[in-house]
């Protein structure tokens, strides 16, 4: 009864807040509206929709022993308190994605991104994460690829595996591009990011040799060192001879990141990756908490309009209309296919009771979605003119400040060269023009929020702290992703020649790591030399790939639901699947077929080829044009490949579902048999 009343009150507040967000026009709206709408939507989704799904659709059974209880080995399978699992799972799923995507999508205004983040998560992303977590828990913690193979057939399994590897390569490339663009021409940022490497190494040695396993104290020491690194960067920036040592161009930084990625993948994990993982988790949770508190304390007004003229297409940050591209640009934060890989495999082995999947699966994703809402706030509290000046590539608005501000002002977002110069000076940067990738504009937004909360000084330090924070966990993703990609490749190549599959054989390690690094390094390099900033091409490709993985995960979930006789509830995962299939296909169609050179990959390649042939390109751009032409064509073919894979997996799922619905035999369910929980948790290891 009380639960019902609370629900109704929350629904009214939530509806009021969403209505307020949607109807406020031509006057600035306060960030608290977004926060209120978010909290209400998540709480209602969690208390009612998620509870209904766990009770009726998944029929969660708290009396059933989980794999953690049955297979408890004290290490991999360990029944763990649900709030601790929640923390682990959230730390694993929340990367830089929910910060970057919403920042870029703010070119449409704050409204489209906000609505998609709220409704996409409670109806799609949270449901996907929870359902896959539950299904993997019922299957001894099997991975998404294994579940696809066991339940749908070899094709589904192969598609899930291949899709994972491809998305990983594109994901690493786009994140590396974000970090390179953040460091480009900024000695302060470059020093504080570079400093994270020896700090991680030192912490790695400390926690292995000096005080083995004392992770907490090592992390605290590391945090202090990271902050000193940011301060040291400021000092270096002031010193004329030293700043030259850390002042690099995009291609130089890309070469550095590529070499770093390869080295990080071949040295032992305890030396670099593990300590970096600890530091990034600490930073991440701390910054998110700090950001949430600060936004509530200063509750800034959002200066970006609800909708901009770019909803009709021709946006400067990425091309395409609001439908379907807002749904592609914001993947993490609304629906992220990658989460299905964490929800299967790692987290289910910690689940202590099936009843915990709602908190861990649905709850963690709701929190990640809230992080995405905070990124929307950080992007839209900036003057729109400033936002566009930072995020638009020089190829779009012109390379010199006066042309750029004139172009941006002509869009209806007034900004002056002096304003940009002053802002750059306050942030301790030489320039903030054309700092594409989302990280610098997010850092400006975060620095403004933090400095207004904690006193209006140290703006430049906050800015570089925010950049370092983003870089630390982007580098963690690069290290971890390259390593996992290497394992997957070794597993695959081992089928052709056994020694290549041995993860301890050093020549194979060197070779497969180099292949993975070459894969993402290629996309990174082309992104860096692209005068439009590269993000406009790479981010949509990443979005399509991530949504493709979500479509595969939701296909597996829908197939399992139908096979287990729950056809009438298949819409719970089938609905989000249909939506993602439509969005991804329409976006892919436009990226492939559009005659607009800014939007279509092949049209873009043809346009550039025409310009190159007629000799209208300046020498510098003509030199890189052949690479850009090839890259656009490659991206076009990759998009075709992704779309074909998605539809083949959906067709495979429908085939299985049809057979199941008609009572024909299908692959047997791979669900582990029911074992009742022991009255006492833990204890016996057998």
């Amino acid at each position, binding site marked *: 009864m009380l639960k019902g009343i609370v629900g109704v009150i929350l629904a009214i507040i939530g509806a009021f807040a969403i209505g307020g967000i949607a109807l406020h026009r031509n006057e600035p709206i306060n960030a608290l509206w977004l926060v209120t709408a978010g909290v209400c939507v998540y709480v209602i989704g969690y208390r009612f929709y998620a509870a209904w799904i766990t009770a009726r659709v998944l029929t969660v059974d708290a009396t059933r022993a989980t794999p953690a209880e049955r297979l*408890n*080995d*004290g*290490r*991999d399978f*360990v029944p*763990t*308190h649900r*709030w*601790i699992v929640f*923390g*682990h799972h959230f730390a*694993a*799923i*929340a*990367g830089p*994605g929910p910060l970057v995507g919403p920042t870029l999508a703010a070119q449409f205004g704050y409204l489209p991104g906000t609505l998609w983040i709220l409704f996409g998560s409670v109806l799609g992303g949270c449901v996907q994460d929870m359902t896959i977590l539950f299904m993997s828990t019922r299957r001894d913690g099997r991975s998404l690829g294994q579940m696809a193979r066991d339940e749908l057939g070899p094709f589904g399994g192969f598609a899930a595996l291949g899709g*994972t590897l491809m998305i990983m390569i594109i*994901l690493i490339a786009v*994140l590396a591009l974000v970090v390179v663009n953040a460091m480009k021409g900024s000695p302060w940022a470059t020093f504080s990011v570079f400093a994270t490497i020896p700090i991680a190494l030192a912490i790695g040695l400390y*926690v*292995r*040799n000096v005080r*083995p*396993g*004392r*992770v*907490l104290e090592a*992390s605290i020491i590391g945090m202090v060192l990271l902050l000193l690194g940011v301060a040291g960067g400021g000092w270096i920036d002031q010193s004329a001879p030293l700043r030259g040592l850390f002042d690099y161009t995009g291609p130089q930084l890309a070469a550095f990141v590529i070499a770093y990625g390869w080295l990080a993948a071949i040295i*032992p*994990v*305890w030396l670099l*990756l*593990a300590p970096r*993982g*600890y530091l990034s*988790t*600490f930073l991440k949770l701390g910054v998110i908490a700090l950001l949430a508190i600060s936004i509530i304390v200063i509750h800034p007004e959002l200066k970006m309009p609800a909708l901009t003229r770019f909803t009709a297409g021709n946006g400067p940050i990425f091309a395409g209309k609001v439908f379907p591209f807002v749904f592609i640009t914001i*993947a*993490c934060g609304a629906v*992220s296919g*990658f*989460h299905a*890989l*964490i929800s299967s*495999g*790692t987290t289910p082995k910690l689940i202590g009771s099936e009843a915990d999947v709602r908190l861990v699966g649905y709850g963690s994703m709701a929190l990640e979605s809230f992080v995405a809402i905070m990124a929307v706030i950080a992007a839209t509290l900036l003057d729109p003119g400033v936002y566009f000046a930072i995020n638009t590539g020089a190829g779009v608005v012109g390379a010199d400040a006066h042309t750029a501000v004139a172009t941006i002002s002509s869009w209806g977002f007034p900004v002056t060269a002096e304003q940009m110069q002053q802002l750059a000076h306050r942030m301790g940067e030489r320039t903030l023009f054309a700092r594409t990738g989302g990280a610098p504009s997010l850092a400006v937004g975060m620095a403004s929020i933090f400095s207004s909360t904690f006193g209006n000084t140290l703006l430049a330090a906050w800015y570089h702290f925010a950049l370092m924070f983003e870089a630390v966990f982007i580098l*963690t*993703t690069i290290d*971890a*992703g390259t*390593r*996992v990609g290497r*394992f997957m490749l070794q597993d695959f190549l081992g089928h052709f020649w056994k020694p290549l599959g041995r*993860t301890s054989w050093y020549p194979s390690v060197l070779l497969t790591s180099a292949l993975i690094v070459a894969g993402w390094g290629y996309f990174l390099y082309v992104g860096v030399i692209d005068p439009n900033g590269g993000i406009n091409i790479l981010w949509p490709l990443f979005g399509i790939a*991530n949504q493709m993985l979500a479509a595969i995960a939701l296909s597996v979930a829908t197939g399992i639901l139908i096979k287990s006789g729950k056809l009438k509830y298949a819409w719970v995962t089938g609905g989000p699947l249909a939506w993602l299939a439509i969005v991804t296909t329409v976006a892919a169609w436009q990226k492939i077929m559009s005659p607009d050179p800014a939007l279509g990959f092949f049209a873009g390649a043809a346009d550039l080829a025409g310009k190159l042939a007629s000799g209208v390109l300046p020498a510098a751009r003509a030199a890189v044009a052949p690479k850009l032409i090839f890259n656009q064509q490659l991206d076009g073919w990759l998009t075709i490949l992704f779309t074909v894979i998605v539809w083949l997996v959906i067709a495979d799922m429908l085939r299985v579902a049809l057979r199941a619905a008609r009572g024909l035999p299908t692959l047997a369910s791979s669900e582990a048999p029911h074992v009742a929980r022991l009255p006492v948790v833990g*204890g*016996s*290891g*057998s």
Partner: protein
Amino acid sequence: MRAAATGVAAVWRACWRALRALSGDDAYDRYRMHHLAAHPQQPPLSRKAFYVDEQRRKWGTINRCC
């Protein structure tokens, strides 16, 4: 007064335990407890060997996302 102090101490201990569990600081203690219960005759790994092995296991699979 004394009751309040014990209350604060209990909360502090709970927070500390949660922080250790969240960060993985208590992994070795948990391993030792499990080992003692499950395989009392075999010698356990040293703290250092356990840590290195544990990192290899943790980072050998996808455990970070975008």
